[in-house]
């Protein structure tokens, strides 16, 4: 149980229209990620679902029931905030117990559930500490503990990992994914980090200026971006976008080729260019190559590829992997 349906949901602040009207269906147990650049309305959309903002138009159905006018507490959803939003004057135990206390659950039940959550999240040794005495990762786990303890219909995550350092972020990403597998509860996760989106999501919703650009599984979006925005946003490093004669030759206004779909050679190929920067990542080497008549092209080579700044290389795009776009930026 945890199906969420948005029907033409819109939001304006005064005269400014933030979300012009969104239709979306989040299936029960799905892990849906809202992704998009800053200011695209992804957090606002999440807050509308949570009930922390009033919607200007449309309906939100939670498990088939109209939740549009329900206060946040009665929607049966839990939220994990970017800033963790722990209660600083309470111990970890009392932080996790808070939603249960508000729901007037009896004391023994609270104790059992809090200890269960603490065990799952490796927080048992920290139950008596205050949030101020915990590290960033531990605080985030407490925030998650507080969210899971009352068994909500769905979890809402608002950029939960952006305050953590890179190594911890990878760990927490895995932990949240594992949590999703073990709880099998609907999760809606907001991030601007497309790697998080790709690695965690069952379904990605790409947002741009309050509009949904595309909805689909990570691989669908990667393989078949519907337009230039999605093509440029999904995938790291970004897809190379080429306009001009090279595109026209393929009956398109713009063509796109991902760095990993460009064959590299030091001897022959379709395009030739000069290596500007070579980023050696160990497993891979990313080459930023200046190709005359085309512009800068990024290509991914294996880690052993022997080039340096200023070397001449040949590039060949894999023709079946080329994406073509029309004058409106829509995929052909």
């Amino acid at each position: 149980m945890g199906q969420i349906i948005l029907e033409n949901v819109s939001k304006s602040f005064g005269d400014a229209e933030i979300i012009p009207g969104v239709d979306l269906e989040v299936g029960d147990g799905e892990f849906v990620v809202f992704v998009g650049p800053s200011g695209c309305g992804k957090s606002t959309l999440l807050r509308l679902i949570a009930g922390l903002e009033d919607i200007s138009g449309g309906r939100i159905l939670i498990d088939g029931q109209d939740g549009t006018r329900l206060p946040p507490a009665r929607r049966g959803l839990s939220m994990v905030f970017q800033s963790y939003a722990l209660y600083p004057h309470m111990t970890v135990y009392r932080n996790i117990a808070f939603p249960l206390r508000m729901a007037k659950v009896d004391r023994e039940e609270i104790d059992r559930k809090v200890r269960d959550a603490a065990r799952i999240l490796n927080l048992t040794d920290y139950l008596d500490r205050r949030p101020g005495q915990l590290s960033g990762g531990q605080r985030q786990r407490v925030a998650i503990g507080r969210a899971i303890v009352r068994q909500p219909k769905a979890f809402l995550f608002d950029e939960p990992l952006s305050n953590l350092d890179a190594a911890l972020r990878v760990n927490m990403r895995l932990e949240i994914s594992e949590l999703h597998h073990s709880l099998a509860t609907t999760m809606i996760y907001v991030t601007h980090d497309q790697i998080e989106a790709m690695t965690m999501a069952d379904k990605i919703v790409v947002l741009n200026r309050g509009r949904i650009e595309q909805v689909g599984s990570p691989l669908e979006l990667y393989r078949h971006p519907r337009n230039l925005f999605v093509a440029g946003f999904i995938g790291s490093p970004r897809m190379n976008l080429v306009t001009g004669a090279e595109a026209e030759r393929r009956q398109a206004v713009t063509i796109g080729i991902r760095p990993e779909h460009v064959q590299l050679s030091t001897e022959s190929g379709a395009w030739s260019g000069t290596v500007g920067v070579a980023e050696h990542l160990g497993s891979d080497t990313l080459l930023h190559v200046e190709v005359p008549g085309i512009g800068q092209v990024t290509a991914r080579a294996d880690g052993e590829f022997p080039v340096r700044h200023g070397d001449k290389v040949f590039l060949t795009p894999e023709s079946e992997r080329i994406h073509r776009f029309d004058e409106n930026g829509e995929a052909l």
Partner: protein
Amino acid sequence: MARAVTTQRKLVFTAIGWLIGILLFFPIFWTILTSFKTESEAIATPPSLLFFDWTLENYIEVNTRSDYLKHALNSVIIAFGSSLLGLLIAIPAAWSMAFSPSRHTKNVLMWMLSTKMLPPVGVLVPIYLLFRNTGLLDTLVGLVIVLMLINLPIIIWMLYTYFREIPGDILEAARMDGASLSREIVYILAPMATPGIASTLLLNIILAWNEAFWSLNLTAADAAPLTAFIASYSSPEGLFWAKLSAASTLAIAPILVLGWFSQKQLVRGLTFGAVK
């Protein structure tokens, strides 16, 4: 580059600090000293500093002439009553202005503050008549209400500033966790803002305790607090400095002690802002 504070500079600042402190405290010190002198010694020139005949006769006389304890109790009721009542009204008001501001919030705050710019004597007659007609003259309830209203803008302003330091996320988290508005205030906001609320309370107790204008004009005997008790010693028969000093010492002693013990809390409250 920040300049290191040298020992010499430290010494100079410490000396200046002490000098200002002593200057501010001197009138109180002199009042206390005078209260132990006889009336003739109190007005002697040159004044004697410590070498005089110490006497308690002023205190004895003050206590036989008037009921100190009754006035002190009135002061306590008025100061605590008006401050607590003020908090009760100001906490929700400051909450709404800090966390749910409208276009007019700033104007409302300025308007409230502007009421403090009006000389109280400007509204004395209407308030006096209002009190007379409602039977509130010379009652504790009346004085609690009027002092609460006088200090309400300050209470709301202080709380507003403290509340704004509390991240809105935390209150939203409480809302998601199922807390109603009242529980959100009781369980989350109030405990987090305790230093701020405590220092607001303390400051208002001190303000209400020291308030003289309304206490003198709206009370006679029954509800008269310590400020009216002191004033009764500057009588038409002439000034009795030693007795006046004894009465003043008795009046300021409780609040001085309270201030002394709560100074840490007061300073912490006034420099509040480290909840994040």
